């Protein structure tokens, strides 16, 4: 009792802190070291599949921001041809309603979170950007993609690269 009053807890705390020095450090060294995001991530871009899209514009109606612009014309066999498909990622709130509403599963979330630009107008993604083959599709609302994606790295499971 008396021992505990005389700073026993303080000493105990000191040694707890000292022990924690031997533990793995949880800081992520960002540019050198990147974590794998969740398989179902809603990241900062949309990926569009032109083959599946029928140009029905359900995504446009679903968008609460009124952010997606689509322009279609009648093609040779009386089907829509999408001429313009744009999403202003600077105004997008990444709610995912467009992805969820797409009846033909033509719209996906991407997995990239490194989307910073110097100008706002560079954030407007057009057809070329949304169909670019480098973009990875997220499994958000597309469970069939789930198993093909790499597992998320949680900080506790992470293999540490030692950078000093």
């Amino acid at each position: 009792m008396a021992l505990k009053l005389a700073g026993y807890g303080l000493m105990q705390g000191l040694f707890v802190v000292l022990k924690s020095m031997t533990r793995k450090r949880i800081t992520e060294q960002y540019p050198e070291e990147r974590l794998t995001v969740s398989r179902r991530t809603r990241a900062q871009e949309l990926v569009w599949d032109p083959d599946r899209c029928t140009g029905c514009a359900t995504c446009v109606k679903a968008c609460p921001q009124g952010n997606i612009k689509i322009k279609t014309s009648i093609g040779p066999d009386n089907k829509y041809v999408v001429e313009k498909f744009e999403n202003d990622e600077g105004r997008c709130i990444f709610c995912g309603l467009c992805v969820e509403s797409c009846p033909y599963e033509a719209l996906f979330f991407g997995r990239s979170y490194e989307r910073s630009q110097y100008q706002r107008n560079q954030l407007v993604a057009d057809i070329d950007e949304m169909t670019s083959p480098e973009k990875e599709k997220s499994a958000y609302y597309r469970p069939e993609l789930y198993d093909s994606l790499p597992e998320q790295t949680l900080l506790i499971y992470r293999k540490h690269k030692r950078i000093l």
Partner: protein
Amino acid sequence: MISLTDIATQAPVASWWLDSPVSSDWPCHNFWAHWAVFSAGIIIGVLLVVMAFIWFERRFIAPMQLRIGPNRCGPFGLLQPVADAIKVLMKEDIVPAVADKTVHFLAPILIFVPVLLMFAVIPFQNGVGLIPDLNVGLLFIVAVGSIETVAVFMAGYGSNNKYALVGAMRSVAMMVSYEMPMALAAIAVIIVSGTLSMQGIVMEQSVPFALLLPMSFIFYFTCALAELQRTPFDLLEAESEIIAGYHIEYSGMKFAMFYLGEYAGAIIQSAIIVTLFLSGWKGPILPPFVWFLIKLFAVFGMIVWFRATWPRVRIDQLMEFAWKYMLPLSLINLLIVAIETILWDPVQWWLVPVNIVITAVLLTGWAGMFKLRGGSEVGA
């Protein structure tokens, strides 16, 4: 007195000329040359060690919080303090419109100067220093050190900001309270060593006074934490409560002076602890100056360790701890040390375990009687 010809003719060992005391007219048989050399050396050295301390604190506290610490600027982040210094010097110097301009301007200067003055009497190794053998060395340190209280209050008052004033009032109350057990702990050292000169105190320590006078050591260390406004006594610049205390209205160069003063204060308090209790520059194998630096960083490492661990005390806990715990115990400690010195002079080796036992019994016993108002009782 050492001249260059002596060094050349006597074929010295590597650290020979560093080991011997330097007279107060080295070099050139002129005190002012001595003064100039050591003043410049101390100012440059203090600035360098301040940067080293800032880097050391950030790198040392990082693994305790499972982080890595600064590692981008230069190898191992060594240039980070340099970059920070450049940044802070280039910032705009803002003076509040309603501030007391003169007081506001003088406070950062007045907080740094006494710290520099205190370095004058510290022996960095055997007899090397500006005036390490000053016969009132410790008195000089206690006297000059109390000027800082005025500077802190000037900063808080001159800023014309209520948070700054609250911080400054807390600071003055704390510094005045903790000066007393601090001086009493130092007096115990003076009684045993029989001298006020810092050089003399180091020479007297055949066994480090931290072992011979453990209670004085613990009390001095605690009071030094309070004087430095470090955790657990950092409530006067508590970021979460009163933002930054008395230097909230300072920016740019003046803020840098406060920061510099804070870390220079950490150096000088570590240096005083090293000199009074850890046998100064004495040590085997390595050159004495290296020993001094190692001990300096070890003491500061303890302070950083405390910062990483302990919570902040309340203002009433702080005051009661100073007046009801530390002050009576330092007086009792002083009495015991005085009796021991009268009965067994020179000091005997077997007093070391005896004093450690006495300290443990007194600290725990008094802690049993010591109750704080409010909160829940520990271990009840």
